[in-house]
């Protein structure tokens, strides 16, 4: 029986009388946003016809040599800056040697001993507060090609479009303790890279995938358990499922008096289980050595400083500003800064309208409507400008909040100017006291008995009268004025 306590962010596996903590470290492979590959000029567009984006260098023809793509170096350094990490002015490209059909060179150019980015950190916003996760390093490396095994019963096909594409491998410290933290970590990392424009974070296209290192230990223990590495998991959900399965598997082994083998495992998404891929004994000897075709990569202080000046405001800073300047709650700020498009949208809306109303409308109505239609904020049928107008119509009393929802629904059908919708449909709020008095008089007249009851002390009936007035007015009566007048009249 799996007993997992999930009070807030503490994730503990209970077995018999023992409590186990899960220790997780991630090696994220993030594809660098770049027009061309790490060491060649081939394009990197996703989804192209197989083997149409392959240069002689990518296919490792005799005598071909790698030439570093400066743009990819800049992207890696920017990411390092975004992770508040140490930028190494000198880094070295190594060869990781192994044979595989989709690895044309017979080695992958990577960075082993001297990565371009050293230690950094990521702050996670968890329900019970912030958590800092250490970054061990970030290094640049080439992606391999793609082997396609299911097109032919006998043969494997190889697509080299991806061969040589620049990846950043971002290695976390073993600081993560639950599937929820992993979720928050990946989202935050992705958000930072999207802000920076260094990785699009598109997991469906494989731009972001991770090797997940999992171990368990008795709660309170300082020692790490033996870890297993789950290779190449390409969605957050699968990462979480894999961790849950793997952690429980390890706990079962320990409870059963067995030891855990350090090994590489694969996550079977159909069966929802991890299984052994190769043990430590079978691990490849990659024979790393510095690539003699490439000189050590050296960057100057100026080079790094210039890149720093190009760094936009990042989510943590933006959140702080939103809280301080716009008086948002941390919860609201977190949601609005989670991706750069949302925060841009928000900032555009509040340029000309009330912050509080804008926050509520974006987080409430807009997100719900987008969710329902499965749209991204960038695909929103309602432009920031028109949402801003809608909010102003509410703010200046032209329409009520209730009417605003009707207008909003119509705006979702196509980016219409809310002003026009209000005019065309005659939805303008009735705020003329004389007109309202007439309405109210009629309602009181029609409900004499209830008015008498009210006067004799049944104050609850006030709501009934408001509702009647709103109904008669077709929802257009200004609720505040209705309240005031009703009180006088009754």
């Amino acid at each position, binding site marked *: 029986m799996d007993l997992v306590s999930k009070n807030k962010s503490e994730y503990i596996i209970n077995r018999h009388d023992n409590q186990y903590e899960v220790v997780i470290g991630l090696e994220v492979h993030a594809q660098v946003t770049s027009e061309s590959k790490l060491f060649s000029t081939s394009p990197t567009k996703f989804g192209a016809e197989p083997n149409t984006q392959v240069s*002689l260098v990518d*296919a*490792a*023809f*005799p*005598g*071909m*040599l*790698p*030439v*570093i793509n400066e743009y990819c170096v800049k992207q890696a350094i920017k990411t390092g800056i975004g992770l508040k990490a140490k930028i190494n002015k000198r880094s070295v490209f190594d*060869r990781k*040697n192994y*044979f*595989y*059909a989709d690895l*044309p*060179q*017979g*080695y992958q150019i990577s960075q082993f001993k001297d990565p371009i980015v050293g230690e950094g950190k990521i702050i996670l916003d968890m329900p019970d507060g912030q958590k800092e996760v250490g970054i061990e390093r970030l290094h640049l490396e080439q992606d391999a090609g793609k082997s396609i095994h299911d097109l032919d019963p006998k043969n*494997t096909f*190889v697509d080299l479009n991806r061969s040589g594409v620049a990846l950043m491998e971002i290695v976390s410290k073993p600081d993560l303790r639950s599937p929820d933290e992993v979720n928050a970590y990946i989202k935050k990392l992705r958000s930072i890279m999207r802000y920076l424009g260094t990785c699009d974070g598109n997991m469906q296209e494989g731009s972001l995938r991770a090797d997940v290192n999992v171990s368990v230990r008795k709660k309170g223990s300082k020692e790490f358990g033996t870890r297993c590495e789950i290779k190449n998991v390409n969605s957050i959900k699968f990462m979480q499922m894999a961790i849950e399965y793997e952690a429980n598997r390890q706990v079962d082994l320990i409870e059963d008096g067995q030891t855990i083998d350090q090994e590489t495992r694969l996550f079977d998404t159909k069966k929802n289980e991890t299984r052994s891929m190769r043990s430590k004994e079978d691990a490849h*000897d990659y*024979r*790393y*050595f510095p*690539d*003699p*075709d*490439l*000189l050590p990569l050296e960057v100057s202080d100026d080079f790094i400083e210039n890149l720093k000046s190009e760094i936009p405001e990042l989510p943590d800073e933006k959140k702080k500003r939103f809280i301080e300047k716009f008086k948002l709650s941390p919860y609201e700020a977190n949601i609005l800064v989670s991706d750069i498009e949302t925060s841009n949208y928000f900032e555009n809306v509040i340029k000309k309208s009330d912050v509080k109303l804008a926050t509520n409308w974006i987080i409430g109505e807009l997100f719900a409507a987008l969710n329902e239609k499965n749209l991204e904020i960038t695909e929103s049928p309602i432009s920031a400008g028109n949402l801003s107008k809608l909010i102003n119509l509410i703010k200046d009393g032209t329409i009520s909040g209730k009417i605003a929802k009707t207008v909003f629904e119509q705006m979702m059908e196509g980016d219409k100017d809310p002003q026009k919708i209000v005019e065309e449909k005659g939805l303008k709020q009735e705020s003329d006291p004389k007109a309202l008095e007439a309405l109210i008089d009629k309602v009181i007249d029609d409900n004499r008995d209830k008015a008498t009851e009210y006067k004799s002390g049944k104050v609850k009936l006030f709501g009934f009268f408001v509702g009647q007035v709103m109904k008669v007015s077709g929802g257009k009566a200004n609720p505040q004025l209705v309240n005031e007048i009703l009180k006088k009249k009754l």
Partner: protein
Amino acid sequence: MSDITKQSLSELVENIKGKKLSSSEVTKAFVERSEKSKELNAYITEDYANALNKAKKFDEKPNLDLKLPGIPMAVKDLFCTKDLKTTAGSKILNNFIPTYESTVTQNIWNEGAILMGKLNCDEFAMGSSNETSFFGNVQNPIDKNLVPGGSSGGSSSAVAAQLTPITIGTDTGGSIRQPASFTGTVGLKPTYGSCSRYGIVAFASSLDQAGPMAQNVKDCALLQEVISTYDEKDSTSIDFKRKEYSKELTKDIKGKKIGIPKEYRVDGMPKEIEDLWKKGIEYAKDCGAEIIDISLPHTNYALPTYYIVAPAEASSNLARYDGVKYGFRAEGENLIDMYEKTRSEGFGAEVQRRIMIGTYVLSSGYYDAYYLKAQKVRKLIKNDFDDAYKKVDAILTPSTPSSAFKIGEKTNDPVSMYLNDIFTVPVNLAGLPGISIPAGHDAKGYPLGLQIIGKAFDEQNILNIAYAMEEKINFKNNITDWWI
């Protein structure tokens, strides 16, 4: 002009520029002589018909401002040549036709030269006798059944036998200078980073360097001037001011300080080599140079260092020949089986030996003891030269510890074969330029060479010293055309 093939490159250029000879006449002469010399086995691939066509085209609209106007030339088969088979002397590339041109050969064609064919070499340039070539031994024109040296054995044989007026080789541990020495020709290994490695089949990336091979120093200088360019396609190419070596060539080396490293007096060195070296010192003095005794204390470690670094890089560089993308493939039951069969059948014994050594020295648990230590020693060897160059302008040594040997003589003794590179290897490890010039004969009448080693990027200086000494030495190659 009957003796076209006996002319040096400089003479041919002059005669074509002076319109005394056409490119067609010159090309035809070298093609005919090449055709009569099949027994030397200097060529792997002949491209004579195309060469004659190109010569004809050149003559129709001759551009006489070029440095190599209409000059025919065969090149080592390690340089990728567009649309012409490039094998690196290996079965594994026996069917490989590049769609691209190496930078060095492109530079040559840009100056008007015409490709005649591809010259034999040791497989992937791994060898010192041209015996590891999949395409068979090459004969040294000096004597039947004598090796022409290696790995640029086809190149040295072809230049010595005048099948090509000039050629290019590659030198990883002596592969230009040793064969030059064995055939009585001149060979220059330029400073690492001087000539682009783009399009040259790689052996050991941190050591490989292309260079000219010629009948005399002046021709060598001219070709070096053509092939040495900065190339963005090679990250190790160095952007330095290159000279017009042939124009600035001078025999005035008065006052140049030439170092004689005591560590090069190796045990068991034949007296002939010792004598040659002494004679060389006298020639240098005659030219006005000052002789200074120097020490290169880590010389003894150069050969073991080289035989760790070079195989390590080679084991990785040759991983791409796996039967998947191009070249030879042996069918197998599955991927691993295909790899094993392809590489077992596609690579020769020496290449396999070096891949094994290289794989071993890079293996986890051995890396520090071998590869890392070798890199440290390599630095010490380089430091030796840096220290020496505080006192001297160049260094004079023998090129090889012996003259050419017989085909088959050392085939089964790799260590004795490796010892051939003892004087040349330190130069590659330090990335310096070195030139071998013919300087005498041994008792059998076989040529012997002297090596002049320079400071980095100082090709001009060693070319000048070689040029001055060449005149004093007045070497005559004794070639009888025994194969014709």
